[in-house]
């Protein structure tokens, strides 16, 4: 748009001084714009450099071993640092969250865009967006003192006593706060962003195709199956990955609800720890070398989430541009 207007400033009305002002103005704005790139690069470099001694000390066992036994040295690396159980904790809770949130988000989006009248759909969509405005520490508090003890734990007990007898990873014993409880609350937290993107994609379904389906005698559900869902598939994939990025990085609520144990996972109903969680919980009392190790965990987390986010954005961009709205940021 503004590139078209470029031509209008060419007629030299002012002195040479004014065009230098323009040049400096552009440079200043370009620098501000580039700050995003600079900050992202600086984030990776600064943390990776600080964590480097731990990476060289532990090598690949940093991500393949689950032996996490911090030393107390100020200058050297003496402990053993294997973050595998935290990495698995992050992956397990995120997977549970997506398994619940993605189908729910698709259902919500279909209802909001294809079934509900706009006068009903719009306020409902706004209400779902509102879930994104709740601070994560409030999710943590609510899950810790209300939702998990009153709703989730009895439900998990039933699952463990019935299905859990036969299915691995779902058996007793059940700890109050575990991978599943963190994952379930996490599902509620990532639901609005997945719904926001999916909704946007579904709104772009060509009306002609919808009407074509109806003209051929489809019911509404058959139209959704034949037209809306196939069209929205790439967008749903992008939305899922975006939700995954959020779930991987979510810190406080997960740290409060995952149970806080370093053991390797053998069941979904045991306590564990996530990457973000171990940083949040142990950082303040950590020795200098332990701090370096936690920085290392942060670097691994950063690399994973940024890769997931980049892939998600590329997929969403490919399906027709960026997504607007508060819930999507």
């Amino acid at each position: 748009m503004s590139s078209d207007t470029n031509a209008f400033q060419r007629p030299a009305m002012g002195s040479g001084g004014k065009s230098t002002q323009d040049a400096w103005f552009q440079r200043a704005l370009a620098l501000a714009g580039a700050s995003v790139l600079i900050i992202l690069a600086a984030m990776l470099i600064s943390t990776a450099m600080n964590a480097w001694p731990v990476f060289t000390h532990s090598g690949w066992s940093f991500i393949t071993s689950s032996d996490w036994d911090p030393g107390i040295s100020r200058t050297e690396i003496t402990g053993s640092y294997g973050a595998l159980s935290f990495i698995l904790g992050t992956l397990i809770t995120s997977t549970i969250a997506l398994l619940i949130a993605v189908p729910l988000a698709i259902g919500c989006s279909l209802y909001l865009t294809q079934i509900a009248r706009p006068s009903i759909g719009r306020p409902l969509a706004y209400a779902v967006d509102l879930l994104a405005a709740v601070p994560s520490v409030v999710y943590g508090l609510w899950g810790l003192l209300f939702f998990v003890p009153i709703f989730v734990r009895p439900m998990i007990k039933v699952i463990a006593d019935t299905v859990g007898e036969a299915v691995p990873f779902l058996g007793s014993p059940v700890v109050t706060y575990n991978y599943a409880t963190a994952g379930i609350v996490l599902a509620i937290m990532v639901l609005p962003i997945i719904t926001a993107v999916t909704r946007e994609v579904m709104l772009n379904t060509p009306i002609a195709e919808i009407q074509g389906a109806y003209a051929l005698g489809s019911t509404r559900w058959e139209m959704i199956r034949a037209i809306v869902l196939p069209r929205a598939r790439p967008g749903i994939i992008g939305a899922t990955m975006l939700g995954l990025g959020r779930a991987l990085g979510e810190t406080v609520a997960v740290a409060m609800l995952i149970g806080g144990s370093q053991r390797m996972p053998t069941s979904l109903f045991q306590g564990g720890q996530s990457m973000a969680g171990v940083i949040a919980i142990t950082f303040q009392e950590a020795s200098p070398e332990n701090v370096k190790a936690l920085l290392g965990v942060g670097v691994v987390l950063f690399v994973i989430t940024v890769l997931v986010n980049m892939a998600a954005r590329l997929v969403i961009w490919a399906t027709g541009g960026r997504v607007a709205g508060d819930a999507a940021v």
Partner: protein
Amino acid sequence: MTSTELNTSSESVVFSVADKGEMPGNYAARKRKNQIMEGILFLAILMALIPLALILFEVIRRGASAMNFEFLTSVQNISLIREGGGYLNGLFGTLYMVGIASLIAVPLGVATATYVVEYSNSKLVPFIQFFTDVMTGVPSIFVGLFVYTILVQGDSIFGGFSTLAGGLGLSLIMIPIIARASEEVIRLVPDDLRNAAYGLGARRWQVVMQIVLPTAASGLITASMLAVARAAGETAVLLLTALGAFKIVPELLGSPQAALPLIIFNEARGPFEPAHARAWAGALELMLLVLLLTLIARYIGRKTQV
């Protein structure tokens, strides 16, 4: 949303055809399946809204019963076991750090958005747009680690946990949010205004500073307020930068700072009932703060549209 209306009308045509028995096959079964699936979709939206209702209800119920004048006006109780005390230090610290974060993030975010829209022919712009989107997904705990490495662990006067470190951390979370939302707002400024200004002999920087940004001002304020609301509820980044404090800390540097979410986090994790009661009241206070900021943002945004 004319599509929905059209859908219903075209569907009623289908129904009338089916009623005359001209549709082949088992229309009753298909219709029932349609009803069942629509019911399931309705169930999905219900399941999404139940947690929201439960959160709002529980925070208001338990928050209001613990909320009182003392809670709003006094600083934190050092003991988790005893009753009394409030989160005034946290409220002060949150507002202080969010204020500093805004001073950094609003100019940078708006400048980024301005560059993306007004200099869209630059080769840098697609990269900036892409990485702004990516930056919204950087885990806040990692932002905290980053600020820790560049500021907190140093020996300079900027070293140590401080208000400034917390504010800087929050600003890094706000920048991409402001940049993205501002971009959409600046895009809405009509080209006619730009062209008219150029026609009067204005330079490009004058057009941007005196025409484009003032026209978009209300939208830019909305964008910033939404980011402020997000930052006010942010916890993880502050664990590694502000740390927390039991008193009101006016110092910008050299002393750890308190924040509402930090106190809620610490008091909720313990097993003590008085601390839990305060945490609920703190959650109510925090949600009201976030809600207030969001409502102001929407009010400004709706009142004056570009």
